[in-house]
């Protein structure tokens, strides 16, 4: 079922992100794919995202960056803040993973492994191959077409 849903969403770009439930399911798929965990600890500051993620089964919100598996970056300011924190408190397992909601955030930092955003009415999901490799992330075949070499 999960596979069908991912295929459905990603192959045809028909991200059912117009309603919160679909958005949530989609993020759950991405985060579990990149962390290979059954449930993912997510740090996000944007209240709108927090509101959405609150209802997830497989996403647990955390208030501390260092406890999280994935940090969702919704602005450049957030990116800078996270990068500062990472520098101050580097972790052995390179966690948390950074995932952006904007193309420019993805482009601005090599620490960000991927992004999901809307452009010209179409859903855009991107992963940078070198960054996934740096973090030792291997994505399943459904995601291969969204992995790019350069931005």
């Amino acid at each position, binding site marked *: 079922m999960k596979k069908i849903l991912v295929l459905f969403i990603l192959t045809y770009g028909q991200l059912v992100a117009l309603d919160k439930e679909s958005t949530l399911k989609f993020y759950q798929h991405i985060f579990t794919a990149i962390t290979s965990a059954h449930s993912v600890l997510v740090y996000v500051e944007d209240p709108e995202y927090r509101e959405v993620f609150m209802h997830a089964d497989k996403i647990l919100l955390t208030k501390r960056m260092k406890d999280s598996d994935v940090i969702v970056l919704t602005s450049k300011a957030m990116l800078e803040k996270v990068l500062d924190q990472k520098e101050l408190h580097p972790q052995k397992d390179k966690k948390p993973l950074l995932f952006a909601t904007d193309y420019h955030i993805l482009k601005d930092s090599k620490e960000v492994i991927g992004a999901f955003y809307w*452009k010209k009415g179409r859903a855009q999901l991107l992963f940078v191959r070198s960054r996934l490799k740096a973090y030792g992330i291997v994505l399943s075949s459904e995601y291969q077409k969204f992995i*790019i070499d350069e931005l």
Partner: protein
Amino acid sequence: MREQYFNKFIIFLIILLIGFAVFLQISTEHSTEKLKNEEVLKAEQYVHHIVKLMQLRTHNKLEETLNKNPQLQTRLNEALQAFLTKQYQYIFVLKKDDKGQYRFLLDGAKDAEEYHSLFMPQSTLFDEVYESGKMQIIQQEDEVKNLWLSLVYPIVVNHKTEALLVLDFAKTYGEKLSHFNSPLMFVIRMMQVFLLLSIVLLLFLAYRYFKAREALIKDKLTSTYSKYYLSELFNRDEVSNYYVILIDIDEFKNINKKYGEVFGDKVIILFSKVMLKALSSASKVVRTGGTEFLVLIPKNEGKIETLAHTLFATMQKQKYYYNNEEIYLSISMSAMSTPSNATSIQNIQRVLDEKLLEVKSKGKNALGIIDAKSLEDIDYSNIDYIKEALEKERLLCLYQPIYHTKSKEIVKYEALVRLIDEKNPDKLIAPFYFMDVIKGTSQYIKMSKLVFNHVFSTLQKYPEIKLSLNVDLDDLENEEMMEMIRINLEKHKKIANRLTFEILEEHEIKDYNKVQEIFKQLKAYGSEIALDDFGSGYASYGYLIRLDIDILKIDGTLIKELEENPLRAKEVLQSIKELADKFGYEVVAEFVSDENIYEMVKHLGITYSQGYYLGEPRPINEYIS
């Protein structure tokens, strides 16, 4: 309008309305699609011009020129932006890089995408356009935000796709076009709803109609058909396809009287059940009266004789029980195979009725089958046939001579009416077939007028002859008929004294004074009055006392008795003769059918004789010549 045509018309009307509603919907949808297609075509033309402009400005080296000239990039972005209206959501130019990723070259948005930034079109059709170099229209799904259609136009240089110009139509514009004909569609939908409701209503009415029809054509007590079913059945089927049987329970009132009406009803219910069980499912049973049933059996089920006898035997041996008391019913039946030219069930019923009466008069509890020969002339008893014959004056009078018995000289002729067969003018139809059918109707008066015309024209043509004419006493009591007779007598008063009215009487006279008054009026013109069929039925001795008549015509059955019971018959006839002599009446013997009878009549001194031995009814000219 006949029912079957009306039904077909209603069905045709419904189909026509459904067809019209479907046509309207299809044509409206087609016109909406046409409108959309026109818009796409228009956009395609715009895009084509834009691409031409870009190629002109960049000398067919779009990316290379834009790389070198950011100002041109800005100007072209602005040009694209100018193109955006409410109907177009996005317009941009994409280039496919070496790794197959799409990147922005130009963007008409206010906040234009960064040059060479990445774009994932999420549609394989972009690749197809790139490969084929042919424009494509992509119908966007709901999941793509705010877009209706995407026009993907290839920018081709030297048969190679350099880039794609993408024009996205706003979803709102698509909706606007879709709703362009919505008032009309609303009307069509309303019409369809109305039509649907009408059909539902029609079906409901049809259901009600069939329920009401069933109640009308089904007999409530027995579940057989009621008589109303007959006309309906023969609207769609031929009478001639069936054998017809009339069956009646004899003296059923005795059952009701003895056991009560409730039991009587039970007997009728069981009787009809047994009858239905004995018949095939294709047969029909119609309750035409309280205990009278008309049975219609398809002719392909066997011979009428076999079928009728089987049914009669089944019905006859059926027992009915009242408190362990066994009851058998007496049943009278008449049956016939309808002739191939039969058109009316009423005529068939009439013939069967007559046969049933005959069966009953012979002692009841029997079956009478009408032979095919007697049915050949069944049409002659059809009122429409008679009506048409009278309208076309297919009628004539034959004349039977009345002889002076001793001298054997013709003294008078009796006029006898005949109808002429429609197909065979040589065939004449006797009154037996039609007289009872038209009696009491306007056709009877019409026929009487024609007969009077015949008789008077014969009297005029042959001044030396006398004629007699049969008139029913009922006719003389009918104002219209009497008026017609008076007019004729007045018109021909010079020859009216050569006419004798032979009065036929079918029931007892109640008002002798009135009849005597009528006779007086007839005699005033010199006409004579003969009492027909004296000695039988109601033509009794009482008439001799109370009525002023001139001639007695002795009933033919009495004359016939001269052969069977000559001694007694002679005595009776002798007494009539003596009585007539005393009253001064002339006497005529009818039915003188052979020489023996003639001699006896002569010996009895009966003045006048009439019968086949002396002369058959023939056209008058055959006797005069």
